[in-house]
């Protein structure tokens, strides 16, 4: 029985993460989920937030945006618009992005589309900040 599961995180720009891991914690639509190898096939929406990965006994954190996850017994595929490893997150940039998105939301005459886009951007930036700041405290 395999005791690792392949985790793949894909964004429109690249494949961000592709490793054999032993556990994944991801923010599902109905709360956080912990996924171990040999999970039943499951498909869910993923909220913007942090993904906690245990690989070779080490914990790794990633920030992700809204998306979808497909969970198979031997493979987890996550489809999202943004994903960043903890080390790659630029705190200043994320903060800037968050502010820009919040300002956009304050503006008037926004179409539904624009609101959704701005909210998604804000959530993604927030997730990045959360991951970055967690390790410090």
């Amino acid at each position: 029985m395999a005791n690792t599961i392949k985790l793949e995180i894909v964004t429109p720009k690249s494949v961000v993460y592709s490793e054999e891991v032993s556990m994944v914690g991801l923010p599902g639509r109905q709360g956080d989920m912990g996924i171990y190898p040999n999970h039943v096939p499951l498909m869910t929406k993923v909220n913007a937030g942090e993904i906690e990965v245990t690989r070779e006994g080490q914990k790794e954190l990633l920030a992700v945006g809204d998306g979808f996850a497909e969970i198979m017994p031997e493979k987890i595929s996550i489809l999202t618009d943004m994903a960043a490893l903890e080390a790659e997150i630029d705190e200043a940039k994320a903060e800037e992005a968050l502010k820009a998105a919040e300002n956009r939301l304050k503006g008037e005459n926004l179409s539904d589309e624009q609101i959704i886009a701005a909210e998604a951007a804000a959530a993604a930036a927030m997730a990045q900040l959360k991951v970055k700041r967690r390790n410090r405290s």
Partner: protein
Amino acid sequence: MPSTRDIRRRIKSIKNTAQITKAMQMVAASKMRRAQDAAMAGRPYAELMNRMLAEVTATATDFQHPLLENRTNTKKRAIILVSTDKGLCGGLNTNLLRDAAQLDKENSVFICAGRKGAQFVGRTRRELTAELSYADVPEFSDARTIAKFGVDLYTEGTVDAVDVLFTNFISTINQKPELRQLLPIVNIKGVEGTVAGDNEGHTLEASGQEFLFEPDAPEVLSSLLPHYINYQLFQILLESKASEHSSRMVAMKNATDNANQIIKDLTLEYNKIRQASITSELLEITTAQMALG
């Protein structure tokens, strides 16, 4: 016989042209690399999304979504025509618009992305619904705006199908205009499969695995579908841009090569004339001397 001065003037003018086309070639080449990379980078994402959608639609069979509804008699179609804003890119737009001209004139409405397509639609008096532009490095929001027009027309019932006519990127020297059905979603086909030269795309089949859904299949599906349409169009924009820059690069390279060839020929002719005139001058001098002596 042209005078040496005329030829010299022509050489100079052609040299200038060659310089410009060379510069354009360089610019197009660097943009081309970026556009091709972007088109390639989108492939794993598109593939994964196609697979997910195939799984969900296979499971949620009794679920009706307006975007999946296949209307039996298709009266009117909307065509999203993805062309370029600028010319000087070889036969790209000509080929694309030749295909557009063959579409049913009475029963199609056009949504144009790119100026060249809009000009064509205006010139041939077809029905234009919207003219939109997209950035040189296409943004996802561009695709969303364009897709929204198509989806709105479809859900309102103004049209019964939405197609996209765009130039598919096959390789740097080969691009092909292609018509893809966007709505209703019948075959889940990926544009991305074609990047590697596979013209057919591929219909994805569900793996037959029983999936659980959280919260439930309809909800996952109803948020996956619009995203799928948007992303599909985004990938099409990327492909079009890769085609445009590739085509322009090749066109400009040919122009530069031709200009250099003409310069070579003209220089040869110029030297011949120059030599002929020197020879005749020498002849005249020697004959004059012999006559005097």
